[in-house]
């Protein structure tokens, strides 16, 4: 029993007790040492080792070693943790005795580190780390592309520089073997209707899409009905702000408005554009004689709603109407002219609903409907532009009146579920109803309907961060062909090093024949089956955010291609093989972003009326593209160059020999090589002016700067004596435009501040 008589004593006591307390602490220190390794027994640096619920711990060094001293006493948990690894912990008892603990951390499969299956595909957009290649901004700033997605994609490997037909000609495939999908749903007539031998632009502006995946082969089981390639376009979500815009250029005027709700949960927008080539053709002489100047009306509208659970409902519609009429000298008689007129109406609708269902489930539902009507007339005219009938069958046969209608309805649903880690399963179904009606010379009608159904499933399996599989399959049935098929797809990716990986892929792809190839003019179509391609690919990619190197080799086998002679059937076949290189670099030269694509292609096929197996007219062995972009801040101006080169393509005069009753090659040759240097310039005068209410972009561009001869193909007269080069209507295309936008709120300042 203690009795304290004065404060001094008490103070002393407090002092003693306190110092004893501190003293005991000093002597209670425990040392903990150890190492941290990964499951391959490699030391891990930077791991945080903590005695839980205390401040004490350490960070492992380059040898995975750590050292902790602690004053704590008793039972604790010691934990080792690092991002990308599963944490490990142990119970310890701190009692002054030195403790030695070794940890082994198992790597977690994570989206950031895991390998991605990249065989065959170029992915663009901001969200993905791997193979970010071509964004909307890239499309707008690719010299010579004039803001056309397809033109910009033609600077990527695997594509051909075909200028006389629209579409992407990929790895020996025809243009119709590449399909465009918007939010997973196939688009009919994605290009404007035009006249023969002149490629038209795509109908959809690059700015509508937040990203795109261009697959040159071996694509996912989620998509089908494209023998060569798919271009997957993913529409944007809510805009960043409300905005009004207007544009005026050498060929069009336009205006638009988009409104973002105050709560930033919904938006709507409308745009209208009018294109008329009258002023342009008045200045720049064209080879054909345009008696109806090309004129286009284009309107689109959209709304987007963000749902409570973070999902998204989107609607987009596009309506366009265009007409044109042009004359060329008739190939069979220089005294006659071919007159071509076209009227087109097109309406496209796309509704999609993406939702998070919770517990790792996601759904994507979609509906699209499009209708396209072309009224085409070709006439034979004399020197006074009057319609004539010659009595010569092969000339009079060119007089055609065609009224065609193509409708397509697509319903699609996909469910996605995370199974473990980042491994995912996707499955779903789609239904297409296509209705095609052709009225020939006001006489023959052909109505072709098809109900197409597909069921598909796919899984992305991540075994480790280094190894992943993508396996899937697709079952398809078409009522038109009364035929079903099963298309397996398989891909494997292996990480070979830091930022480097290899992929291989295999897949079988089926496509319904083009209606026009199997049309039976009495009615309907000839009974045929699917055309088929089998792809094998191997690819290697090394990339960082500023540089991408990619090499890919492929072999593609074509079976059951459509032959139109002697009968319409599926006996055609062919192959394509080759390799491609791609290099993009934003690092080496300051402020310069450039890429180089090279494609080697060896392909032959026997299809349509080919008398034998031939290199098709749309394929050439060597294609090279060099694209450079630079922005000079001082001048607020971007300069963009694109150089496309392709070796000559074959051309044939395939004619019917009445004596042998067979098609024969009467003449053949190769076109000259193609050189096309495109240039564009963007000037942003108000860039960074904080008080500027108007944001202005001035664009000037020219294709074929060097004015080279562009010859795509040759056409022959009936008697084979006259051979005419297929060339663009003018060697060059010039464009000057001014794009204005007005932000409805002040956020433009933010953008400028932080550019």
């Amino acid at each position, binding site marked *: 029993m*203690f009795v*304290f008589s004065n*404060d001094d004593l*008490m103070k002393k*006591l*407090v002092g003693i*007790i*306190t110092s004893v307390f501190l003293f005991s602490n000093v002597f209670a220190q425990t040392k903990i040492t150890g190492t941290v390794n990964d499951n391959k027994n490699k030391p891990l*640096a*930077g791991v*945080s080792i*903590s005695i*839980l*619920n*205390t*401040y*004490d*711990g*350490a*960070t492992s*060094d380059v040898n995975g070693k750590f050292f902790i001293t602690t004053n704590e006493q008793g039972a604790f948990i010691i934990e080792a943790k690092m*991002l990308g690894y599963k944490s490990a912990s142990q119970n310890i008892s701190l009692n002054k005795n030195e403790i030695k603990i070794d940890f082994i951390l198992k790597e977690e499969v994570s989206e*950031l580190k895991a390998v991605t299956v990249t065989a065959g595909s170029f992915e663009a957009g*901001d969200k993905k*780390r791997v193979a970010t290649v071509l*964004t909307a*901004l890239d499309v707008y700033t690719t010299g010579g592309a004039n803001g056309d997605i397809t033109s910009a994609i033609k600077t990527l490997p695997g594509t051909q520089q075909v200028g006389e037909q629209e579409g992407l000609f990929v790895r020996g495939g025809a243009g119709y073997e590449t399909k465009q999908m918007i939010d997973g749903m196939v688009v009919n007539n994605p290009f404007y209707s035009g006249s023969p031998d002149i490629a038209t632009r795509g109908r959809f502006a690059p700015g509508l899409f937040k990203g795109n995946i261009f697959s040159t082969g071996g694509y996912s089981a989620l998509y089908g009905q494209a023998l060569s390639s798919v271009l997957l376009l993913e529409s944007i979500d809510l805009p*960043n*702000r409300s905005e009004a815009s207007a544009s005026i250029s050498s060929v069009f005027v336009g205006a638009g408005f988009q409104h973002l709700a105050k709560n930033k949960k919904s938006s709507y927008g409308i745009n209208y554009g009018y294109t008329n080539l009258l002023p342009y053709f008045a200045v720049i002489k064209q080879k054909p004689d345009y008696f109806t100047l090309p004129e286009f009306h284009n309107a689109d509208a959209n709304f987007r709603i963000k749902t409570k659970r973070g999902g998204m409902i989107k609607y987009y519609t596009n309506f366009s109407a265009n007409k044109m009429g042009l004359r060329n000298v008739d190939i069979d008689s220089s005294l006659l002219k071919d007159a071509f007129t076209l009227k087109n109406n097109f309406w496209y609708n796309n509704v999609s609903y993406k939702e998070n269902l919770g517990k790792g489930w996601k759904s994507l539902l979609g509906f699209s409907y499009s209708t396209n009507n072309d009224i085409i007339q070709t006439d034979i005219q004399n020197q006074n532009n009057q319609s004539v009938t010659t009595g010569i069958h092969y000339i009079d046969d060119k007089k055609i009146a065609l009224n065609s209608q193509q409708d397509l309805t697509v319903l699609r649903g996909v469910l996605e579920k995370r199974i473990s880690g980042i491994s995912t399963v996707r499955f779903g179904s789609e239904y297409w109803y296509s209705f095609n009606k052709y009225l020939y010379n006001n006489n023959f009608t052909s109505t072709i309907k098809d109900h197409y159904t597909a069921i598909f499933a796919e899984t992305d399996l991540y075994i480790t961060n280094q190894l992943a599989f993508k396996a899937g399959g697709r079952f398809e049935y078409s009522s038109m062909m009364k035929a079903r098929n099963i298309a397996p797809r398989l891909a494997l990716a292996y990480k070979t090093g830091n*930022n480097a990986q290899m992929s291989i892929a295999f897949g079988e792809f089926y496509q319904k024949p083009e209606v026009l190839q199997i049309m039976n003019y009495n009615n309907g179509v000839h009974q045929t089956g699917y055309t088929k391609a089998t792809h094998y690919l191997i690819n290697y990619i090394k990339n*960082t*955010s500023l540089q991408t190197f990619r090499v890919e080799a492929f072999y593609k086998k074509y079976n059951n291609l459509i032959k139109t002679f002697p009968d319409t059937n599926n006996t055609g076949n062919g192959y394509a093989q080759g390799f491609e290189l791609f290099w993009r670099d934003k690092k080496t030269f300051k402020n310069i972003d450039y890429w180089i694509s090279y494609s080697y292609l060896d392909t032959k096929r026997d299809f349509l009326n080919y008398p034998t197996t031939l290199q098709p007219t749309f394929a050439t062995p060597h294609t090279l593209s060099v694209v450079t972009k630079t922005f000079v*801040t*001082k001048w*607020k101006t971007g300069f963009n160059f694109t150089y496309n080169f392709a070796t000559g393509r074959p051309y044939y005069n395939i004619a019917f020999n009445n004596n042998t009753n067979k098609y024969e090659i009467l003449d053949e040759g190769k076109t000259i090589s193609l050189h096309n240097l495109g240039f564009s310039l963007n000037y942003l005068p108000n*860039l*960074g*002016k*904080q008080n500027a209410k108007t944001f202005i972009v001035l664009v000037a561009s020219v294709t074929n700067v060097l004015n080279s001869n562009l010859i795509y193909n040759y056409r022959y007269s009936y008697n084979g004596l006259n051979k005419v080069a297929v060339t663009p209507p003018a060697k060059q295309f010039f464009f000057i435009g001014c794009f204005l936008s007005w932000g409805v709120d002040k*956020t433009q*300042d*933010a*953008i*400028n*501040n*932080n*550019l």
Partner: protein
Amino acid sequence: MKQLLIAFALLFSTAIFAQSDKYMSAMKANIQQMKDAKTNEENIAVIQKFERIAEAEKTQWLPYYYAAMLKATMAIISQEDNKDALADEATTTLDKADALSKNNSEILCIRSLIATAKMLVNPQARYMEFGMLINKYINEAKKADANNPRPYYLEASNIFNTPKQFGGGCEKSKPIAEKALQLYNSFKPENEIAPNWGKENIEQILKACN
């Protein structure tokens, strides 16, 4: 007896004081280490120390705040391909600070820093989205505490570092930097470990702009 009670009470309060003193001194030491850290390894070690304190204390937002700030800074200065990953880590840590202290002007400043790191991954493609976020957080930080100089510092610094052609430069930065300095001069941090950074940088900006 009374005195005995006083003695125990004193002893007990010393222990309490020792506990919060331990927090203060550990934080002070870490803040000093944060200022001294030069290499990536040193930064990581300091971040982990802050995180240990945060996890042990459970109710203090400041250690999470400093860990997130360092992660955001690392994301901004990183020359490697890990800006996005670091910025995401910073967000995860900052969310924990935010859960302990809502609508905190200092935390909003770090959100703006993280958005800056995100934008720098690919300024051309991302300035629309993240440029807006940077300023949104700065404005929210100003609103949350009108006397906090740091949102003004960040704004002045962003403009200062933006090329003149893009609406940046001294002329536009200076008035905001002056406002920031004025606030710094009247700013009294709550205690020794409360956020108290940026004044030197503002002085540098003002020096460069004079």
